C-alpha cells in the first residue's frame, strides 16, 4: 500500500523522484519535495507518537515550524534529537522515529562542518511569502542591497499551499528577478531566529541536511548568518490556532490551513472524510481545496450564527461548535454541541490566526491585542522595522501584496533609495471577508481539552493554576509548563492567554502573552559554535621559537592564549626529574629560555617619566638612560596588578615590560589614564610585544657564552653592570642586551627582532654547547625565582595583596606625593599587623612537598570545623639547590612569625613546617654578578 493518500497529480513534489525512508521501524516511500510529515500522511500514517506526560496518541497537527505534536528523532544518517516531522525534508536513507519525550544525542562526534557569515544590507526582508516578496522586489528595484530570508526550500510562503496560480507565477518571477540581481541575497531554508539591538538579525541556513548521505562533506551543514540591516521588513506570516474542546488532541485533528497545504503543496489527502470546524473564513478555502482533491467534507461547523448554511453542497452548521472529537487512537467521529455526530477521520480546525510576532517582540516591539482580529499584533518598536502582510494581521493576498510593497518602499526610502520600477502585482479574486468570532475554550471535560499539545497541558491544568492563586499568565506557564516545549507555544500561546483570561474573567489584552525569546525556532548548538572549536576555539599565540621548542620535545603550558615551553623532558624524565636537571644546569652552568611572551610597551614623549611615576609604585623618573629598574603597578585599590622592568632608552623614551598575561591590560591602563585623566601629558604608547623576541641567558657561565657571541661587547661586571642595558650585536644580529636576573644568577636578556629570533636562539645554543647549555621552561623559571623569593603576580598574589604584603616596601616610594594605589595603603585594613605576608616555608621533615593551595593552621591537632586558617601555600617546589622542598606562602602576620612552626593539614596528617624568609637561596645576592 504505497502512498495511498497521495493525489494523482499536482503538488510541488517531484513524482519522478521516489525517496525511500524508514519511520518507526517500517520502510516507506515518498517523493522529493516531501517533508517527513507529508510523506507519512501520504502513507496513511496518522499517529506519529504518544504524548509526553499522558501517553496519549498524537499525530500531525500542522504543516510547518509551528507543529506542536509530531516530534521525531532522526537516527540516521546521524542522530539528531527532537525535530518536527513537518520541518524535516525527506531524503533517501532517512531513518527516524516518533518521539514521545526526550531526544537522544549521538554517542559519536558529529563529523559535519558548521560556519558563520556576516552580511550587511540596506533592507532585510524576513519571509518570502507574498508580502515579503513584494517588499524585497520593491526594495531591490530601488537599488538597495537586499537580503531576503525564508525558512522554506523555495520562496512563495503560504502561496505554496494554495492553488493561486496567478500569484504563484508572480512569486516565481519575482524570485527569479531577485536571484538575478547581484545586490540581492536570497536565502532559502534559512530561519531568522533572533532579532537583536540595532537591527542585528541572526539566521540559520540549513545547507546540506536535505541531501542526506549525499551532502558534500566540505560544505558547512548549517550556517549562521549575522545580518546587520539598516531597515528590516518582517513578513513572517501568521500561525493558525486551534481551541480547547474535548479530545482536541486526537490524531486526525488538524489545522485547516495545514490540511490545505498538504493537499496543494504535497499532493496528499490527510484523510478521507473531514468535518471542518471554524470561527472564520479561512477554513472554507481549505475545505474547497480538499473537496476538489477528493476528500469528502461531511460538514462545516461554523461558530458564527450568521454563516451561510450552504456551501458547495456541503451542510454548514452555523452558530454551532464541537462538543468533542471521538475515536480510539485517531478521529472516528465528531460530536457537535447539539449532540449530532458525524463520522469522519479528519477534523479540520481553525479558531483564527496569530500574526507571527516573535521576532518583533524579541527586540522590544510591543504587541497589542486587536479585538477585531482576535489576536496580538505589532504595535510599535524602536527598531527601524516594518511589518507587512499576515504578520501584521492582514490576511487577504491582495492586502499582503500591497502592504509588502509599501513596506519595501518605505524601507528603501528610509535608507536613501528611490523606489523604482517593479513587477506588476497579480490580480486575485478574493471574496470580501466576513468578521470572525473568537473562542478559546468550549464547554466539556476540561481534563481532555488540550491547550498545549506538546506539554499535555489541559484547561483543567490551567484551572488548577488559577485556582491556586495565580493571576499572571507567566505563572500559569511555569505551573503548567504550557508554551515551554519545543514549539514554544507557536500555536498554543495565544490560546493559553485566552483560556486564562476566560477562567479569570479578565480581558485577554490586559492579561497579555508570555515573553517571546530567541530563538524563534530551535537551533543546534553546533551551528552556534561554528568553527570556533578545538584549536580555533581561542587563538593559540606562539613565539617565533615555537617550532624549535616543539621539535625539541618541549611540553607546553597555556598562559592566557600563549603556549609557553613548560619543560623539556629527556627520555625517561618526568616533570620533577626534568626540572631538577634544568635548575641545576642554570645554577651551576648556563641555561636559556624563551622569554618572548613578556609584554613590551614603547613609552615615549617629554612626559613619559611623569606618567610612569604616576603608575608605578616606585620612582621611575630618576632612572638613568642606559639603566633598568624593576617596578610594580597597583590598581587604585592598592592591590598589586602587574610588575616588570622599565628600561630607559632616552631621556624621553622607555621600554616597559609586563607579565605575559597582562600586556594588553597594562597598555589599556596607560592609555586610559593618558586619554581620560591626564590628556595634558605628552606621551605615546606603542605595543612592541611581537617586535622583539627575548632569550634569557642565565647562569654562572652565561657571561662566557655572551662573550663568545658578542666579541665586541665588554661583558665584565664593571663595564656591563647589573640592571643596565646595551645596544649591540649578538651573533651578528642587532640586539639589545639587558642585565636582568629573575633567578639570582648572573643573567642576560637578549632582545632581537622577531625575525632574528631563531637565528639568535640557534647561535646561543651552539655557543653554549661547550658549557652544557640547557634549555628550560616556565617550571624551572618558577623554581629559580621562588628560591629567591621573587613573587609571580597572579600566583603568589590574588588581587588582595599589596606590595607591602609581599615584603616589597622598598618598591613603594615614600617620596612621591601620589601614585595610583597609594591612597589605599592608608585605609584601616591596610594598617592591620595581621595582614597576610609572603614568607618562605620549610617542611620540618625536609622531604614533604606541600601542595600549592595547601593551608596552614596554628594547632597541632585539628579542632572541629570551622578551623581558623593562617594562610596558604602559593608556590611549592623541590629545590635542587637547597636539596629539599620549600614553599612560599601568604601567612597572617607572617613576617612577625619567622622561625615559628605551623602546620599544613594534608589529608589526615598535619605536616609541621617552619616559617622563614622568602629568600632561601643566596640571600646575600652574591651570585648575580657571576
Amino acid at each position, binding site marked *: 500500500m504505497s502512498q495511498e493518500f497521495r493525489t494523482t497529480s499536482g503538488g510541488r513534489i517531484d513524482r519522478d523522484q521516489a525517496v525511500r525512508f524508514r519511520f518507526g521501524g517500517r520502510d516507506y516511500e515518498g517523493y522529493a519535495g516531501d517533508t517527513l510529515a507529508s510523506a507519512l500522511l501520504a502513507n496513511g500514517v496518522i499517529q506519529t507518537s504518544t504524548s*509526553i*506526560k*499522558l501517553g496519549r496518541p498524537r499525530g500531525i497537527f500542522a504543516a510547518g515550524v509551528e507543529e506542536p505534536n509530531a516530534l521525531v528523532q532522526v537516527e540516521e544518517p546521524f542522530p539528531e534529537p527532537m525535530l518536527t516531522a513537518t520541518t524535516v525534508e525527506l531524503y533517501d536513507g532517512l531513518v527516524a522515529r516518533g518521539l514521545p519525550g526526550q531526544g537522544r544525542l549521538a554517542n559519536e562526534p558529529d563529523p559535519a562542518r558548521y560556519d558563520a557569515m556576516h552580511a550587511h544590507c540596506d533592507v532585510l526582508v524576513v519571509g518570502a511569502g507574498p508580502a515579503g516578496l513584494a517588499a524585497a522586489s520593491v526594495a531591490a528595484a530601488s537599488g538597495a542591497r537586499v537580503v531576503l530570508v525564508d525558512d522554506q526550500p523555495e520562496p512563495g510562503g503560504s502561496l505554496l499551499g494554495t492553488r493561486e496560480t496567478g500569484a504563484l507565477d508572480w512569486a516565481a518571477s519575482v524570485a527569479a528577478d531577485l536571484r538575478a540581481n547581484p545586490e540581492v541575497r536570497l536565502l532559502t531554508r534559512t530561519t531568522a531566529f533572533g532579532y537583536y*539591538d540595532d537591527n542585528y538579525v541572526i539566521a540559520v541556513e540549513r545547507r546540506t541536511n536535505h541531501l542526506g548521505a549525499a551532502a558534500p562533506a566540505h560544505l558547512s551543514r548549517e550556517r*549562521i548568518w549575522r545580518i546587520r540591516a539598516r531597515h528590516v521588513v518582517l513578513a513572517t506570516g501568521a500561525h493558525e490556532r486551534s481551541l480547547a474542546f474535548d479530545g482536541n488532541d486526537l490524531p486526525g485533528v488538524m489545522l485547516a490551513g495545514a490540511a490545505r497545504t498538504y493537499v496543494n503543496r504535497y499532493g496528499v489527502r490527510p484523510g478521507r472524510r473531514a468535518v471542518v470546524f471554524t470561527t472564520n473564513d479561512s477554513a472554507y478555502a481549505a475545505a474547497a481545496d480538499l473537496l476538489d482533491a477528493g476528500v469528502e467534507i461531511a460538514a462545516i461547523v461554523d461558530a458564527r450564527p450568521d454563516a451561510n448554511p450552504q456551501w458547495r453542497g456541503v451542510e454548514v452548521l452555523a452558530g454551532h461548535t464541537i462538543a468533542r472529537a471521538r475515536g480510539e487512537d485517531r478521529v472516528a467521529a465528531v460530536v457537535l454541541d447539539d449532540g449530532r455526530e458525524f463520522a469522519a477521520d479528519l477534523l479540520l480546525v481553525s479558531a483564527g490566526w496569530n500574526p507571527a510576532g516573535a521576532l518583533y517582540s524579541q527586540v522590544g516591539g510591543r504587541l497589542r491585542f486587536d479585538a477585531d482580529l482576535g489576536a496580538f499584533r505589532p504595535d510599535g518598536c524602536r527598531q527601524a522595522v516594518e511589518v507587512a502582510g499576515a504578520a501584521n494581521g492582514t490576511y487577504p493576498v491582495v492586502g499582503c501584496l500591497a502592504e509588502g510593497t509599501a513596506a519595501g518602499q518605505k524601507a528603501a526610502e528610509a535608507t536613501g533609495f528611490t523606489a523604482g520600477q517593479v513587477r506588476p502585482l497579480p490580480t486575485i479574486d478574493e471574496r470580501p471577508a466576513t468578521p470572525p468570532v473568537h473562542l478559546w475554550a468550549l464547554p466539556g471535560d476540561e481534563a481532555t481539552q488540550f491547550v498545549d499539545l506538546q506539554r499535555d497541558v489541559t484547561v483543567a491544568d490551567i484551572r488548577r493554576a488559577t485556582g491556586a492563586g495565580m493571576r499572571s499568565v507567566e*505563572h500559569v506557564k511555569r505551573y503548567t509548563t504550557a508554551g515551554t516545549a519545543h514549539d514554544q507555544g507557536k500555536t498554543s500561546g495565544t490560546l493559553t492567554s485566552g483560556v486564562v483570561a476566560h477562567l479569570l474573567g479578565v480581558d485577554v489584552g490586559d492579561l497579555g502573552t508570555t515573553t517571546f525569546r530567541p530563538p524563534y525556532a530551535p537551533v543546534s548548538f553546533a551551528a552556534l559554535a561554528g568553527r570556533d*572549536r578545538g584549536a580555533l576555539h581561542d587563538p593559540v599565540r606562539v613565539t617565533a621559537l615555537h617550532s624549535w621548542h616543539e621539535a625539541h620535545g618541549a611540553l607546553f603550558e597555556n598562559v592566557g592564549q600563549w603556549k609557553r615551553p613548560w619543560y623539556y623532558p629527556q627520555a625517561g624524565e618526568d616533570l620533577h626529574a626534568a626540572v631538577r636537571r634544568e635548575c641545576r644546569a642554570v645554577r651551576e652552568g648556563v641555561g636559556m629560555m624563551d622569554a618572548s611572551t613578556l609584554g613590551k610597551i614603547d613609552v615615549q614623549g617629554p612626559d613619559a617619566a611623569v606618567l610612569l611615576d604616576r603608575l608605578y609604585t616606585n620612582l621611575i623618573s630618576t632612572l638613568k638612560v642606559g639603566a633598568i629598574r624593576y617596578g610594580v603597578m597597583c590598581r587604585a585599590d592598592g592591590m598589586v596588578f602587574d610588575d616588570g622592568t622599565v628600561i630607559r632608552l632616552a631621556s624621553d623614551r622607555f621600554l616597559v615590560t609586563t607579565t605575559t598575561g597582562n600586556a594588553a591590560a597594562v597598555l589599556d591602563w596607560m592609555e586610559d589614564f593618558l586619554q581620560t585623566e591626564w590628556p595634558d601629558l605628552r606621551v605615546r604608547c606603542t605595543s612592541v610585544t611581537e617586535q622583539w623576541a627575548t632569550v634569557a641567558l642565565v647562569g654562572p657561565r652565561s657571561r662566557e657564552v655572551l662573550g663568545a657571541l658578542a666579541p665586541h661587547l665588554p661583558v665584565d661586571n664593571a663595564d656591563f653592570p647589573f640592571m643596565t642595558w646595551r645596544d649591540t650585536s649578538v651573533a651578528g644580529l642587532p640586539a639589545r642586551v639587558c642585565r636582568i636576573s629573575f633567578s639570582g644568577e648572573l643573567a642576560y636578556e637578549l632582545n632581537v627582532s622577531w625575525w632574528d629570533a631563531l637565528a639568535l636562539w640557534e647561535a646561543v645554543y651552539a655557543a653554549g654547547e661547550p658549557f652544557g647549555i640547557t634549555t628550560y621552561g616556565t617550571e624551572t623559571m618558577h623554581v629559580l625565582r621562588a628560591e629567591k623569593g621573587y613573587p609571580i603576580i597572579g600566583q603568589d598574589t590574588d588581587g588582595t595583596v599589596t606590595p607591602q604584603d609581599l615584603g616589597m616596601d622598598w618598591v613603594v616610594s615614600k617620596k612621591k606625593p601620589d601614585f595610583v594605589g597609594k591612597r589605599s595603603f592608608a585605609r584601616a585594613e591596610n594598617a592591620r599587623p595581621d595582614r597576610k605576608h609572603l614568607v618562605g616555608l620549610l617542611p620540618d621533615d625536609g622531604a614533604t612537598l606541600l601542595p600549592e*593551595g595547601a593551608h596552614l593552621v596554628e594547632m597541632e591537632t585539628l579542632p572541629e*570545623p570551622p578551623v581558623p586558617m593562617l594562610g596558604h601555600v602559593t608556590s611549592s617546589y623541590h629545590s635542587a639547590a637547597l636539596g629539599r622542598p620549600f614553599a612560599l606562602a601568604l601567612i597572617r602576620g607572617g613576617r612577625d612569625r619567622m622561625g615559628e612552626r605551623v602546620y599544613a*593539614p594534608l589529608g589526615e596528617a598535619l605536616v609541621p613546617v617552619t616559617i622563614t624568609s622568602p629568600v632561601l637561596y643566596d640571600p646575600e645576592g652574591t651570585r648575580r654578578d657571576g
Partner: protein
Amino acid sequence: MAGPGSDLPDHPDWLWRNPEPKRSYDVIVIGAGGHGLATAYYLAKNHGITNVAVLERGWLAGGNMARNTTIIRSNYLWDESAGIYEHALKLWEGLEEDLDYPILFSQRGVVNLAHSLQDVRDSVRRVEANRLNGVDAEWLDPQQVKEVCPIVNVSPDVRYPVLGGTYQPRAGIAKHDYVAWGFARAADALGVDLIQHCEVTGLDIAGGRITGVQTTRGRIAAGKVAMAAAGHSSVVARMAGIDLPVQSHPLQALVSELLEPVHPTVVMSNAVHVYVSQAHKGELVMGAGIDSYNGYGQRGAFHIIERQMSAALELFPAFARAHVLRTWGGIVDVTPDASPIVGLTPVDELYVNCGWGTGGFKATPGVGWCYAHTIAHGEPHPLNAPFSLDRFTTGALVDEHGAAAVAH
C-alpha cells in the same frame, strides 16, 4: 506510556492569596524574589513577625528567581562566604520538608573544572579551605572528572584541556520556581501578604528613620523596610539617597530541548565560561558569561550565547546536535568584590540585601534566615556581619573573584 515530566510531583492546589495592601505593616520587604520571600517566611517563622508585606513590582518571583541556572553549592573560598553559603546548604537539605513543597532539590554534585596550572592551584586552595571550614570538597584528576561526568571531554586536544576539577558532592540543583512558590505559600500561610504588581516608587524617611514606602498602589506605612530588589537594588536604594557599590548587568542562560539523561551532575567551567546541568525533565540548562555593560533590559547580546555554545562543545562534544530552545536574560547586581551586601544602612530600620550577582539563588534560604534575623534584631546575624556595606570603606573586602572565582 508516560514520558518525562509525568513523574514530577504535582503542585499544591493552593499557593497564596492575592490580598489588597493594608495601610501599614511592621515590616515591608521590597521584592518578591527568592530572597524577599524567604526573608518574609523566616521573619514569621523564626521571629514571630507576621504583620509583613512583600511588595513586588511584577509577578511574584519573576526576576532572577525565575531565570537562574539553579546551581547550589557552598564551596566558596573565604571563611565568611563558606559560613553563609554552608548555612544555606544545610537549610536546603531540610527545606522540602520544612516548606512541605516538592522543590526537587537534587544533590547531584557540582564539578568546577580547572584548565590551567593556576586554576589547579586555586582549586586546591579552595578545596583545602572548604575542608577546614567543614564544607565537603574533593579534588578530582581528569580521569575522576570523567567518572563523575562521563561526557566531559578530558582529552588533551581541547583548546584548554581539563586538568582536573573540584567536586562538592552535596551540591546540586533545585527547581527555582518551586522554591519560590514554596516559600511564598509557607509565608502566606503564616499571614504574610504577598502583593504583586505593586512597585515601590519612593521611600519615606523622617528624622533619619524609615516610615513607609510609596508604591504604585499608594503609600504603605512600615516600621521596618527591607530591600531585596536584586537587579534593581541601586534604583530602590537611591530612593533613600543611598548609593550602593553595585552595577547591574545582563546575565544570560539557555535551555535545550528535553534529552535522555546524559549529564548526571553539574559542571562549571569558569575559564571557558559555561555551566551545565540537566534538569529533571531532561533539558540542558546552561549559563553564560556576563554581558560587560550595565543593563536593565533582561536581555543580553547574542555573541555571548555563541561563545557559550563553542565553549560547551569544547567540553561536551556530544551536545553538537542538541538544540537551543530558549535563551533569556536576568539582571544581576555585581559588587566590586563579588560578595553580597547584607545588613544595616545609614537609614534607621532600612535594611539592605543585594549584590549577590551571578550566584544568589543558592543562598536563598540562608540569606532569608540571616536577613530576617538582622531585621528582627536591628543588627546583623553573625553570618552576614562580614558582608556589611562599610567594608568598602575600611577595605575589609571578601574578594571572591581574585582567588578562586567561580560564578553562580
